[in-house]
Each structure stands twice: as structure tokens, then as C-alpha cells.
């Protein structure tokens, strides 16, 4: 994968070098920030590769405004202070036009303000913390420069809770990891359930890399839970599924989206079967765009499976959305691109959906609830959990105008 990319980069460099007198336009610099090393790097790398793929496609087709897109990738290591430092470098030194990325909600919260202050749009394409897009809401701020193409927590939490209630479960146990991500999700879940008049029978916590989930599960079991809502990322969610099998306790499990990570599928094995979670994207080739995306991804990065498909797809789409906005703004100035994003005239065909006015000045989340489906783990694959979704897989779910 390395060599082919290097070759590509070299070819591109040569091409631009020779064509330079003719084109003469500077490339458009776009920051890409995420954890490419460390614990959450599988999401970061999938996102980055999705972004690379899209940028490559756009550049092949002549770029934007006659200029090439140049990605400035920086590893934020999933650490707040590094994320903040990366943000400042991208803003002040690299002078990027916009930035895509953020896997970890904490990093987004620590780093976004630099973009906001510099009036540079930033599109969160994986991080889900609800507060992310509300950090700089009017009237405290004139304009909000933070956008998102992932399904935020309140939305996911609502879906998870509703699904549990709809299936007739009364006694809900919540398990969440002790990170920012898990705890924000747990808060959203509890709030939503409270609004529905349901009080969870157990609310438990687990740590990243925990070896044993016995205590958490026994507490839930002792409280008489008949369903588990789990907020965490792949490996630990898998440990929960395995722990339940060990204790011989079988209740349905509804999780946040990362149960679609390959690590969950691998580690949980058959214990993971039947676990459902909200998904914006399921690795199927029902639409031409999806087929070309998946084929392109597999071929370019020499894999037969995206480590974290949702992150890859959302990353890919975020580039097209940004490109469309720059094109519409006819400029790379931050405020103009932001304005264009908030009022996109053209439809943008992405992998997750076809975006039709995805953002408005008041709503900076591209994903609405109707666009998210439940995926289900089945024999090592993520499939549609519901038959009607599977039947409509080929139908593009477009954002509801009324939502939010």
C-alpha cells in the first residue's frame, strides 16, 4: 500500500511539476487530524484512508476551482494536548482552508476552538459527542464553524433506547466505558430514558482494556436487567459479549456504533451474533457509489475489508461535502466556505447518503435519525438488522428537513 501510494504521489508530483507553468494554481490545503497511532487508531486510519481516497478521486478529475486538494495529515494520537497543538499548527503554520477529522470527542473539544477563532471550518467525520457541534452556538458566537457527518450521541442514544423499549424490555442496564465517549453517551442515554419515564436498573462503567467484565455483568444481572445498552468501542464491547456468554446470561445487547468495528466481530466471535447497533453505513454494494467506494478502497489500500467501515465512509463523504462547498463559495476563505456549507445548492452524492442541504445555519449535523439504520452482527458480518431496511438498502435515505 505504501509503495503504490508513494508511486502515485511521485507521479502526481511529476505531473504537477511539468504542468506547473500551465496551472500555476496553489493546491488547496486541507487538514486531516485523527489518531493514526494508539488505541483508537483503527478508526483514525480508516477515516484517513477514506479521506485520501476521495481527495485522490477529486484531484484526478481536475480538483476544485482548478486547484488540487493537498491533504495535510497530522496524528493527534488521541490526546487532547497533541490535538490542540496539531490544530494550531494546521491553522497558523500550514494555513489550511478547512480541516476534516477528529475521532475522539475529547480531542475535538480541546482543539476545535483554534479553528473557530481562526474562522476555519472543521468537519467532524467520526467523533459523536453531542456537545461537539454545540460548542460555539449562536448567540455566544456569531457563527459556528464546526460541522459533522457522523451520527451524534443523542441521536444514537435515542435510537438505542427506543429500540429497547419498542422490543418490550422494561429493565434496562447501561454499561459504558469510562472515557469521554462512553460517559457522554451514558449521560445522553440516561437523559433520554428519563424523558421516556424509564429508570435504568443498573448503570455500570468499564475501563479500556479491562480483562474481566464479571462485576459489571453480575450487577446488571442481579438488578434483573432484561436488556443491555452498551456504550463503548469494539474490543471492550466484545469483552461484554464474551463475559455474558461466560456467565451463561443471555439478554439482548444493543450497543453504540463501534460494535461494527472489525475488532468486535473478531473478538466476540459467535458470542457477538445478534448484537445490534446504529449505523450510518453498512458495507454493501447496493448503490453504484457504494460499490465504487468499496472497490476503490479495497484496491487502493490492498485490504478486503475496511477496519472501521463507518469511519471510512464518513471520512470519504466529508471530503466531497467540503469540495462542493469550496466550489460553491468560489473561494477558499473560511467564512465563505462556512456559508456555503450552511447552504449547499447542489446535491452531493456520498456513500452514506446523497446530501441535500445537509447543513443549515442552525443545524450543523448532516445525519438525521431517519438516515441511521440498525446493523446486526451475523456470522462475522454486519447486516441490516431489520428486513425492511435490507429491502430498502438500495434506496438513499435523505435527511429529513424537519429534523432538528
Amino acid at each position, binding site marked *: 500500500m505504501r509503495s503504490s501510494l508513494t508511486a502515485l504521489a511521485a507521479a502526481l508530483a511529476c505531473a504537477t511539476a511539468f504542468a506547473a507553468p500551465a496551472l500555476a494554481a496553489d493546491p488547496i490545503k486541507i487538514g486531516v487530524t485523527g489518531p493514526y497511532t494508539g488505541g483508537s487508531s483503527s478508526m483514525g486510519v480508516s477515516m484517513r484512508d477514506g479521506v485520501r481516497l476521495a481527495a485522490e478521486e477529486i484531484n484526478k478529475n481536475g480538483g476544485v476551482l482548478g486547484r488540487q486538494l493537498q491533504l495535510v495529515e497530522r496524528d493527534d494520537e488521541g*490526546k*487532547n494536548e497533541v490535538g490542540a497543538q496539531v490544530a*494550531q499548527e494546521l491553522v497558523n503554520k500550514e494555513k489550511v482552508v478547512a480541516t476534516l477529522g477528529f475521532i475522539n470527542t475529547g480531542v475535538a473539544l480541546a482543539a476545535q476552538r483554534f479553528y473557530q477563532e481562526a474562522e476555519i471550518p472543521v468537519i467532524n467525520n467520526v467523533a459523536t459527542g453531542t456537545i461537539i457541534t454545540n460548542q460555539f452556538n449562536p448567540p455566544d458566537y456569531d457563527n459556528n464553524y464546526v460541522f459533522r457527518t457522523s451520527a451524534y450521541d443523542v441521536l444514537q442514544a435515542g435510537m438505542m433506547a427506543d429500540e429497547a423499549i419498542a422490543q418490550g424490555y422494561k429493565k434496562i442496564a447501561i454499561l459504558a466505558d469510562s472515557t469521554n465517549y462512553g460517559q457522554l453517551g451514558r449521560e445522553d442515554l440516561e437523559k433520554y430514558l428519563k424523558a421516556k419515564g424509564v429508570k435504568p436498573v443498573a448503570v455500570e462503567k468499564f475501563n479500556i482494556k479491562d480483562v474481566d467484565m464479571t462485576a459489571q455483568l453480575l450487577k446488571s444481572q442481579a438488578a434483573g436487567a432484561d436488556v443491555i445498552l452498551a456504550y463503548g468501542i469494539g474490543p471492550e464491547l466484545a469483552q461484554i459479549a464474551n463475559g455474558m456468554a461466560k456467565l451463561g446470561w443471555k439478554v439482548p445487547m444493543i450497543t453504540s456504533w463501534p460494535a461494527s468495528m472489525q475488532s468486535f466481530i473478531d473478538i466476540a466471535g459467535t458470542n457477538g451474533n445478534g448484537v445490534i447497533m446504529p449505523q450510518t453505513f453498512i458495507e454493501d454494494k447496493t448503490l453504484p457509489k457504494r460499490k465504487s467506494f468499496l472497490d476503490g478502497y479495497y484496491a487502493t489500500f490492498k485490504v478486503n475489508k475496511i477496519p472501521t467501515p463507518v469511519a471510512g465512509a464518513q471520512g470519504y463523504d466529508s471530503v466531497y461535502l467540503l469540495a462542493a462547498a469550496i466550489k460553491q463559495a468560489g473561494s477558499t476563505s473560511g467564512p465563505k466556505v462556512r456559508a456555503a456549507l450552511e447552504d449547499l445548492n447542489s446535491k452531493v452524492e456520498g456513500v452514506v447518503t446523497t446530501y441535500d442541504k445537509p447543513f443549515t445555519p442552525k443545524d450543523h449535523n448532516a445525519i438525521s435519525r431517519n438516515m441511521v439504520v440498525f446493523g446486526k452482527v451475523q456470522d462475522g458480518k454486519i447486516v441490516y438488522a431489520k428486513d425492511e431496511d435490507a429491502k430498502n438498502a438500495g434506496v438513499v435515505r435523505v435527511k429529513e428537513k424537519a429534523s432538528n
Partner: protein
Amino acid sequence: MAQPASAPALARQTAPPVPQAGLGRFVGLLGAVCLVVFLAAFPHVVTSQYYIHLLVVIAIYAILILGLDIVVGYTGQVSLGHAGLFGIGAYAAAVLFLKFKLGLWVGLVAGIGVTAAFGLLLAIPALRVSGPYLAMVTLAFGTIIQIFINEMTDLTNGPLGITLPPARVLDFSLIGMQAPWGAAGRKLEFYYLVCACLLATIVVVNRVVRSPFGRAFEALRDSPIACDCMGVSVYRYKVYAFVISAALAGLAGALFAWSERYVAPNSYGFELTVLFLLAVTMGGRKSRAGPLIGAAIIVMMPNILADISLVRIMAGIIAALAVVVVGLAFLRRKDNRMSLLIPGALCLAFFPATLAMESVTDFRLTVFGLMILFVVYYLPDGIVGFLREKLPFLRPSHTGATQELAASGDALIRQGGRSGADPLLKVERAVMQFGGLKALNEVDLAVRPGTIHGLIGPNGSGKSTMMNVLTGIYKPTAGGVSLATGTDAARRLDGRTPSEIALSGVARTFQNVQLFREMTALENVLVGLHHSFQGTLFDAILGTPRRRREEREARARAMAILDFVGLGSLAQVEARNLPYGKQRLLEIGRALALDPVLLLLDEPAAGLTAPDIAELTAIIRKIRDAGITVILIEHHMDVVMGLCDRVSVLDFGHKIAEGGAREVQSDPKVIEAYLGSPVADAAE
């Protein structure tokens, strides 16, 4: 043979040249001026907010690392908990804002105070252990702090973290005025605040390490036992060092919270601690410039590694340097040329490796690890240490004051000797048991004041054990030790700590020389004089007149003591560089600095040449003549016979004889113990 006072004076004229210390001081001052000018001018030359913020972060890290250097560099302890302390400082400031809307200034004070308190909390159990144990305790502490910050949601907002508004350094609206430097200047207020904190930290650290506190820190690193026996409680001074270090970590943390304006629990983990430690060693321990360099490196490193072209250039430079260094080593046929080959080859190989790589991000941590290894192997004294070795004028002046020190007359004996028939020291039925072995078995000992009391016996007879019981290093299993000081009733010594015993007037030397190796002869004696300093830590930090007076007096006295033992000309030589005989004498001088009533000499003549022994006996006699009681353990029988007024003989933990020197010499039991008998041989 008895060396008159003129001999040291003579020696002083022909003394080896003392390092040009004045220049070291000058370089330090020049560096300080450069730093101030650089910090003041930087934001006006480089206006990019990015670089200004980068410098702020470097300065904040430098504050912490300067503090860490006190623990790592001066006291030689490895702390893996400083990221935790840093986090406490940050949270102290952030929580005060979250809960009480208290701003930057209160936050800074709280950061220092709260973190120092936590440092104390950690230090009290942790510093009873050392080495790997300490490393692990501090590591556990850091982890606990992280868990608590994460869990105490009511106080800390849990994993969500705390967001802070832009810091308000000076609020002119309170007095109804506009900031005189306008809006652009306001943006720099925080920058200048951080710079001021950094400079203040440098001054404070400088003063502390040059005070008796700093000397105690270095002493306890070089020889904890000797340190305790000089009346400087190792434990207490370790705690001091740790708390000072924690306070600076807290200051850095509070500044960091207001600089990043967002704190969250996961920022203060193990990796940050490793970074800090790397910065300390890489920059160079025991210096002010080192932490600054180290901080700059660790902050800039991720940025440099993110840019592949920059990495390639760097790798190219490193490769070129490696070629030059190795080439030079071979041309000059240096001894270490073979050992340089491997690192040289590695440095060379690194360059093509970076060319092959499309991005270095994935191998960032490997590069980081290699850097640590490189520092540990080839740069153990850091960049500053390396430069000091190559460029002698950069070496620090040894705690200043190298001007000719006049030896003041009353070198010895402030407590005054005593005479009379009542014993000064009484040991009653002392038993010291190690497992099944009784190293001392109901030994009685009475030492009359103003005498030299010999303690002899074959190897393993319990002489050194007795010494250790007397000085509190061992607590006797049974029996009592008491010392008749002054006119009061005798004071019990058993059960007291070594430093308490030392302060009550019992000084000692060691069988294996236990000098503070990296300190000069003068500083060694100054550690012995530690008890004469009344000044507090605040005196040291503020540089009060009292502190300066005490230092002046102590130095004059230390010189007098050095002259007394004939080392006046070697005052500025590091103890490890002294000849062996001189080291023995220096130990005696250091012990005398304690103003002892009783001096214990543990085989002072071991390994000395004949002229050295002559000098030694003369000095011991002078000490006795000054009224100090001496207990002498010695194998050289002529020394013992020539000096001792009374001799006790130990064998297998029993006292087998006691009396005048001649008397004991002819005692058949003593002869048997020394020459052996069939029975004794069988027992061996």
C-alpha cells in the same frame, strides 16, 4: 612529621589550578540575559500565534522539568508520577474556575498549594523506599490520580473535562482604564506571564540548589548513610525536594490549564511522565539550561516528526555528523572508536530509511524510543553535560565564592570538650541480633571523656556493628546506649535516628569511604556544617541577609576545618578526584564540622601509606587535644598502641578484654583471638 599550619599554606600556592569558576558564572549570566532578551523580543519578531503558543508550552514544560530536575538530578530519585502532579495543578486551577469562577491568579496560587500538598501526601509513604520501588509507587500514584479525576464527576466534571475562557491576566476595567498596550498587547499578556513564571522558577531553583538545601539533596544522592550521619535527615530532605518539585509541577499545571483552556483526565498519563524524564536527561541534569533545551525538544518533536521532508533533512544532518564524529575518532585513533561504530552505522542507516518511508507518523514512537536509548547510552549527562565536557568554560563555578577564603581561627570545638571520670558514652548490655547470629552479645562499654578509646578485634568480631549501633544505623535488639552531654543527665541514644544522634554530638567516618563524590571538598564539609544553618527554605528562595551571612560564616569555618586536616589547597576539588589518603582526611574533616563531642573513626588508616598514617595520627591527636573524645577502630596495631588511652577487645560479639594498651596487648585471650586456637579454627 607533625605538619605545622604553614604546610597547607604552602600547598595552596602550588595547588593544581582550580577550574576557572568565574567564567562559568559569567556564562550563566550571559545565558540569562540572552534568555530574557529572547523571550521579550520573540512575539514581536515572530507574530504567528502558533509559534507564540508553542513557546508558551515549552516554557510551561520547562517550569515542570526544572522542578523535576531537583528530584531526578539533585536527589537522584526517579519519579514516574510527575504527570499526575501536573494534572493536579491543572485541575486545581480549572475546578476553582468551574465551581467558584475564580480566575487565573487564584488558580496559580491554588495550583502551587494543592499540588505541593499532594506532593507531600505522596512523599511521606513513597520516599521511605527508593530505586525501582519508588519508581513504581510514583507510577501507581499517577494512575490513582487519573482514576480519581475521571471518577469524581461532581468536582472535576469527569471525562468531559473543563473548558476555560481566555485568561485574564490584568483586568484594567476594574480601575476603569484601558490596557495601555492595546488589544494586540493584551493577547501577549499571558505569554509574558508565563515567561515571568519561567524566569522566577529559574531564580528560585538556582537559589535553592545553591543553599544548604541543595547541598543536602546532592549529599543524600551520593551517600544516604553519610548524609544521615552528618545530621541531615535523608528522609526529610527527600520530602523537601519532592514538595518543591511538586509545587513547580503545580504551577506548570495551572498555567497549562489556562494556556490550553481545556483540561481532561486523559492528558496526564504515563507517556507524559516519560516525556518529562526524557527532557530532563536529554537536556542535562543539574543545570538550568538543560531543562529549557529538553522542554523545547519534547514539544517540537511531534511537529518535526510530522513533516517527512524535515525528518529527511534532519536524518541527513545526523548521518553527516555521525560520519564526521566516527571519522575523526578513527583519524585520531581514539580508544572509543570501535564502540562508536555501531551507533555511527545506525545514524547512517537512518537516513536512507527515512527516504524509503512515505510517512514517519507510524514509526513516531519507535523514533521516540530510540531517542531515549540514545540518551541513556551516549548522552547520560545530556546535551548540557556533553557541552560542559567539551567546552570547559561552560562548567559551573562550584557554588560560587571561590575568592580566597580566610580560615577563621576557631575551626574546632564549639561544643567544647569535657573531662572528668564519669563516662561520656555508656553502652549497657547491647545485643544486636541478625536472624540467628548475635553480632553483639551483651557488650558493655564505657568511654571516658577526652580520651581516645580503641576498639579492636579480629574481622567479624562486631566492631563495625558496634559503630552502627552507636550511630543509630542499627537499632539494638536489646540494651541501651547513652551519652552524657553537658550538665544534664545522660541522654539515651538507642532508638533514635542516625541524624538525631549525629545532631546530639556523635560524628563518624566510614570503613569504606562515604564521601559525597560529586561535591567539592569544601561542599562536603559544608554538609557537615548543615546544623549551623538556621535559615528556612524561604530564606534560601528570597536570598535574605541572614542566609548570606550564614553562608559566609559557614564557608569560612569550612575552610578552617579543611586547613586543620591539611586539605585547604584542595577545597575546590571534587571529592571523587581526591587521592585516597586525602579522602580519608576529608571524611574526618566533614565529621568535625558537626561539632561533635564524640568522634567515631572506623579504620581511618586502612589503605594509607606510611607518611599518610603519620599525618593521620597527628591529626587524631590534635582532635583529642581539642577535647573531643574519639573511639578508634583500627587494625594497625602501632596506630592503636600509639594513640589509645584505653582499648576494648571484641571477639564473636563478646567483649573479651579491656584496659590500657599494653595491658590488653599481653592478655592471653586477646592473643588467642588474633592468632587463633584449634577451637577457634574449627569454629571458622
